[in-house]
């Protein structure tokens, strides 16, 4: 069985990518299974999806703990502990990273034990589509290539899955073309489906009674959500040019997150660990003092 785990951020298309690969495998006559993980997290938050492919019926469900191929839709996920991209990755796992860096550079940065390959899907999407948005077809094509699926079945699967999302035929055709470019461009590292491995032993734990404050889903030390870094949610960041800022506070008022504070001099400042990169502040700024920069790849601020 071939097990593929996709990691992305909500809205990037990891789930659709997993379906493209599942459908392509199905079209080639394999037994296939794909499923996403749902959580509380929204657009921008780490999400995961899974595809299994086999010659015989698949007797497995749910999360893939020991993947043969890991597809990382956003390099910033590697350092996000919530994303858990390294779970079950060992030296035989193939890891694809969407990054503008070379596989070797990514390998050094990521410090993952797997065999790495990379392609700048975001850069391709920005160039070809002209805006940020889902890269599901591109991810699916890359994953399909690495899994040994055929070009034609990927093309068909992209069409089926994007049509299911209600996209117009023009958009689908454009996606097919760009996806197949990615199919052709991705540096191939051969994925070897893992055979059966012994289950790691577990020790069953027997919980005892907690006093009710601890024993129920309550929180008594709020506000504590600031402990979470939102940096990884961003593909772009707002950058203030103080010389252009007129100190009107519109950005401060309109930041949904409260990630913009007012300094003692009355000027705003973006606190990046709490910025999700929605860029509302850029939109409301009357003097164009808030500018946009693409996030550096794989590096946390």
């Amino acid at each position: 069985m071939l097990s593929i785990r996709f990691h992305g951020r909500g809205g990037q298309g990891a789930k659709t990518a997993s379906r493209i690969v599942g459908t392509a495998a199905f079209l080639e006559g394999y037994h296939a299974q794909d499923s996403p993980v749902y959580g509380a997290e929204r657009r921008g938050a780490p999400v995961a999806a899974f595809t299994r492919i086999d010659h015989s019926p698949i007797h497995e469900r749910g999360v893939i703990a020991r993947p043969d191929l890991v597809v990382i839709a956003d390099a910033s996920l590697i350092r996000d502990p919530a994303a858990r991209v390294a779970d079950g990755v060992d030296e035989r796992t193939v890891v694809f990273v969407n990054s503008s860096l070379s596989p070797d550079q990514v390998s050094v940065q990521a410090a993952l034990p797997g065999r790495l390959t990379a392609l700048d899907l975001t850069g391709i999407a920005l160039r070809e589509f002209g805006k940020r948005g889902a890269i599901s077809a591109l991810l699916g094509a890359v994953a399909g290539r690495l899994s040994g699926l055929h070009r034609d079945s990927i093309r068909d699967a992209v069409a089926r899955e994007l049509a299911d999302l209600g996209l117009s035929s023009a958009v689908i055709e454009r996606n097919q073309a760009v996806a197949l470019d990615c199919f052709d461009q991705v540096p191939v590292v051969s994925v070897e489906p893992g055979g059966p491995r012994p289950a790691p032993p577990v020790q069953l734990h027997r919980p005892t009674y907690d006093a009710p404050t601890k024993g129920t889903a309550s929180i008594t030390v709020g506000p504590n959500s600031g402990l979470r870094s939102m940096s990884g949610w961003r593909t772009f960041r707002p950058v203030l040019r103080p010389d252009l800022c007129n100190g009107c506070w519109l950005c401060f008022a309109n930041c949904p997150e409260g990630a913009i504070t007012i300094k003692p001099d009355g000027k705003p400042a973006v606190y990046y660990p709490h910025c999700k990169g929605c860029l509302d502040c850029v939109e409301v700024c009357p003097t164009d003092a808030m500018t946009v920069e693409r996030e550096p790849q794989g590096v946390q601020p």
Partner: protein
Amino acid sequence: MTWEPQIFKTLHQIPREEHVFPGTPLCAGCGGLESLRLAAKVLGSRVVYVDAAGCMTNLAAFPFTPLDASWLYTTMGSAPAGAQGVRDALDVLIAKGRVPKEEDVQVVVLGGDGSTYDMALSSTSGAITRQLDFYYFCYDNEAYGNTGVQLSPATPYGARTTTSPCAVQHPAGTTQEKKDIFEIWRAHRPPYMATVSPRFPLDLEEKFARAAAYKGPKLFLAFAACPTGWLFDPAQTPDVARLAVECGLWPLKEAVNGVVVHTYWPKLTPVEEYLKLQGRFRHLFEPVVQTEAIAHIQERVHGYWARVKREEGNS
């Protein structure tokens, strides 16, 4: 008569102090969170939020909360009843000397439009009828957003949701008209009601400050532009919110003891400007422009403002 803010006249009066802190798992560019953050700047921390199932339920996701106030998640259909229980218990415990008066908190219901317009309506009507002293904060993103954007009674004419697709039978998307929850509330004669938009932060802050003078049910209907559900880039949340007001689709108003006053006279920009920004209305423009549907939306806007003009006079 022109409505004038009396307290919040410049943006620099917006309190710097935060009560909804960063780090929530809500979508980037969430218009509902934007409103809540501004509201909390006036409401402060002496609050218990009684939450109905909806997007905001994710605010307090174990073990993190962005609030320096208390929180109680109830159900989708009964948050106002939860508010009733909390308020009553506080009153009783204070009267019996078991909770000091200075420990008292205000009760704020937090509900999305699905809960507010539909499932919790009985519970809400009961709470208003009993003259419960509470705030009701509805973040209206015009769909069941938390479940993936399905038709709600707040969904406006012409919008596409996952359960009101534009189909051969209904090329315009949904043909229902948005339920007028403001008037349903007003029929109960609560002391204070207002609609707000985070793109009009002074108007919003002013209304929360004014509401504090009234004991009893206080409604806030907050426009919650939703990039995820309405299909626009999160950066456009402020534009969408501004155009909703300027096109006359989201009137900013308040009602004190049932008397309605509009707090902002919009430019009445053509509704296309607003609709075009959002994927949920894209089918009205391509592959063919659905002139009738757009005209219908425009006519309703004009009808509304003509009535307002008659009733309140233009100034």
